[in-house]
Structure formats: structure tokens, C-alpha cells
């Protein structure tokens, strides 16, 4: 696993007596886009939360750029460059678009302004609605804001939980396409997604979870869509 930006080794997470992840091992390379698939309850969200530090782990290691982060508090992981956008967006609804981006930055004001300008270049709708409150945005714009906020917080590895969730098909496809642009700028991305074909279009690698275990991992291409669907939903 040398050269990987993120390495997860033997990760175990449980909610009380119920195991949610059972010995997960995989890695994400520098600039790589990895898609996580699996039915509801497979452990995709739990895995992303465990990497950012929002759920405690029972066992295993999480290495970020060779550094063990599994015992670090969330803010230290973010400071190292791990960003997270949750399922359901969860933007700070009562704050403006600009404030949502500013609040996630620890940089000094000029650097912060430069990063926000970059985000607004990636998602022009955010720049156009910079002074609007986040609750006034459409679902797609809120998702852009959630991704932009995660990118401001940590720009080396982006963890996205179902970025196309609840969006119109075209908006969802556009948002997934923006993942490619983000990766092209050097950010590694690990994202959970239900829309298999659209996600395979942008991912380099596919990881399938079922019952808290990895049941398939391999290159992401159109040919693997059928395998992924079978492994995810039929358990084949």
C-alpha cells in the first residue's frame, strides 16, 4: 500500500453489540477517485464517518499519508487535509453561502478569500448566491455548497456521502462530473453512491460493501457495472 494517500487496515466499527464494519481494508491513491457502493445498511456512511472521526472504531488502523489518524480528534484530521460532506448536505442553513465556506477555513483571510474564489470558480452558482442564506438554495446548490465547504476544510482527501442524493438526474450527473474536475486538481476522493453507472463514469476504482464487509474491489469501468450491481444488491 505504499504511495497511498489513505490506507484503511482491518477497520472494525460497531454500534453497541451490532457490528457495522468488519475488518475493512483498502486504500486510495494520490489523486485517485474511489467509489463506494452497496445497499442501504452496508456500512458506506459509517466507513466515511469513521475515516473523518465522527464514529469511534473498535479496531484497525487508518493511515493518512503514512500517518496514523485513527486516534486523532476530528479537527486534527481536517487540519491534515481530510474534508467530509455528509449525506443530506447539512449546510449551516441560517448562515450565508459565503459564511458556510468561510467557517470551514482555518487559513488567514487572504488565503481564505483565494480558496473561496477557487470554489466559486468550480461551482459558479455559489458565487452568484454568495450572500444568500444556505436554506434559500436549491438542493443541487446546497450539495455544491456541502462539497465546497468540505474542500475548503480539507483539500487533500474528500469524503463524499451520496453527493447525488435527492437531486434531479441532470443535477446529480453534473455534480458527479465535478468530482472529476476536483480530482484533476490533485484531490483524492472517496465517495459513497447509489447511482452505479453515473458513479462509474467518474471513478477510477469501485469498492462494494455488503453487511459491513468488502465483497468486491476493482477497476471502475462500464463493464464492472453489472458485477457491482450483483454484488451490491443480490449478494452474488
Amino acid at each position, binding site marked *: 500500500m505504499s504511495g497511498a494517500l489513505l490506507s484503511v487496515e482491518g477497520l472494525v466499527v460497531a454500534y453497541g453489540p451490532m457490528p457495522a464494519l468488519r475488518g475493512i481494508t483498502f486504500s486510495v491513491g494520490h489523486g485517485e477517485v474511489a467509489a463506494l457502493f452497496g445497499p442501504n445498511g452496508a456500512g458506506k456512511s459509517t466507513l466515511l464517518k469513521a475515516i473523518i472521526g465522527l464514529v469511534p472504531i473498535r479496531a484497525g488502523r487508518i493511515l493518512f499519508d503514512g500517518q496514523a489518524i485513527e486516534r486523532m480528534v476530528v479537527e486534527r484530521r481536517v487540519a491534515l487535509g481530510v474534508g467530509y460532506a455528509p449525506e443530506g448536505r447539512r449546510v*449551516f442553513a441560517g448562515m450565508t453561502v459565503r459564511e458556510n465556506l468561510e467557517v470551514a477555513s482555518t487559513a488567514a483571510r487572504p488565503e481564505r478569500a483565494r480558496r473561496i474564489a477557487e470554489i466559486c470558480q468550480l461551482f459558479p452558482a455559489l458565487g452568484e448566491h454568495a450572500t444568500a442564506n444556505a436554506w434559500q438554495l436549491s438542493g443541487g446548490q446546497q450539495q455544491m455548497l456541502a462539497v465546497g465547504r468540505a474542500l475548503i476544510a480539507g483539500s487533500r482527501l474528500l469524503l463524499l456521502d451520496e453527493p447525488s442524493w435527492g437531486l434531479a438526474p441532470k443535477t446529480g450527473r453534473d455534480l458527479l462530473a465535478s468530482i472529476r474536475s476536483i480530482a484533476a486538481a490533485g484531490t483524492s476522493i472517496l465517495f459513497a453512491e447509489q447511482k452505479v453507472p453515473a458513479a462509474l463514469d467518474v471513478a477510477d476504482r469501485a469498492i462494494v460493501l455488503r453487511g459491513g464487509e468488502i465483497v468486491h474491489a476493482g477497476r471502475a469501468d462500464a463493464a464492472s457495472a453489472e458485477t457491482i450491481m450483483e454484488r451490491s444488491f443480490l449478494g452474488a
Partner: protein
Amino acid sequence: MSAIQLTANGLALGASYALVALGFVLIVNATGAVNFAQGDLAVAGGFLTVALAGAMNLPGGVLLPIAMAAMAGFGVVFAYLAYFPLRRQPPATVFISTIALGIVLENGANGLFGAAPRLGPPLLPGGPVELSGLVLPRQSLAIVAVTCVAIAGLHLVLMHTQFGRRLRATAQDAEMARAVGIPVGVMIAWTFALATGLAGAAGMLLSNQFFVAPGDGTNLMLKAYIAVTIGGWGRVWGAVAGALIVAFFETIVAVLLSQSAAEMLLYLAVLGVLGLRPRGLFGETIGRRA
């Protein structure tokens, strides 16, 4: 009592209630927990200034920031005693811990200062001020001025600084705030510091105008609670408006009828408001919390 004096008294009382109510709102927003000791913390601030004024010959304008800073520091201690150890327990646990610490504060003040009301130092020395033929109580004006400055300062910090944005993000969604790298525990400790600093200011301002006694905390807490309920839970400006409404209602009804009638009618009015507008007069829409 003249209409001008009545207005000045109502404003001064409302301003002091507003400081207590603002602290209440800050803590509710940041933690989801109601701090039932907020009134007792104001009383502690009042007694602190009584003690400081007795020990040091300092003017009120110097004592006020000292009292606010000392109470802010105590607010952090309070958070580590009443909130942090119990933050993962059901909300009722924190309610009870704040009530328990409030009782400790009340009895501590009783033991140290006695049960009798004490007069705190004035913010400004001297008698009433005469402006264009109107005689205005100097202390009332000072209370209103200090409260306006405190509220404006709080607004400035919350809306225009990165620290304030982080406090608001923590208040809106603590888990998400953590996920973007905000040290939520530190922000909550700061919230208790700010809230208790404001309570300390209220305590000092009230202690000269209306005296301070160990048992005053419950009444103050109830007035702040009513102000926040009327103003709408979670709304900063709603809490200020609610505090002014409560104070004017009390002041006017007390003059027209009696103090006990004012108290009774206030609670009946609150029941009426809650019946007609359960979210308060300026109640928030979910997801639009300031």
C-alpha cells in the same frame, strides 16, 4: 412616578433581563440544554461587584469589565462542572445539574453575604441627569447604554468574525461543525464564558438599581425564560424584544395595580401567548435559526 421615569425604569429592567436572556439563548443554541442557573449566575455577578466595590475603591465603569471577565472565567468552570461531564446524557440530566449548581450558588451567596438585599456599586456616580427639562435617572441610562453596547458587541462578534461564525455553526449543527474542523468543545466553553459574562454584567447593573439578594436568581431566571419563550426559542433579537416586553409589562402593571398583580398577570399573559403562538411572538421557522 412620571411617564419618563416609568419608561426609564422599564428600559433599565428590560435591558438587564435582556442580558440574562441572551446568555440563556446562547447556551440553548450551542448545547440544546437550558441553563437554569443563569439567574443565579447574574446574582453571583451582583455579589461579586458588591465584594469588589468593598475591597477596592474603583469606579463602576472599571468594575464592570472586571466583573464580566471574572464571571466569564467562572462560566468556563461552570461548563466543566454542569455540562461537559453530562453532555452525552439525556438533556434532563444537564437541566438538573444546572439547577443543582444554581442552588449551590444561592446558598454560597447566602453564607458569604447573608440573606438581606445588598446595594451594588453604581455604574456612574451622581444623581439624575437633566436633559431638555427632562429629569432622567443616570443609572437607568447607564444600564441601557451598557446593554446596547453589549448587544451590539455580541452582534458584531457573532456576525462579523470567524470566531462568531464558528459559534453560530456550532449552535446550528454541532456534529457538522466538528466535521469541518471546528473545535466544538472549545466553542461551547466560550459560549458559557460569553453567557456568564453577560449574566455578570446584568448582576452588577441590577444590584445598584434594584439591590441584589441570594434568592433573586430564580426570579431572574424565570423572567429570562419567559422573555425567551415570548421572543421565540433560539432567536437572539427575539430574546431582547421578549425581555423588554416582560419588563415594561411588569413596570406598568405594578404602577397601575400592584407588584403581585403584575407578577400574576405576567404569567397569565405568557399562557395566552403560548396558547396563541406556541413558537413565541417572534418564533423561528425550523432551519432559520440565527
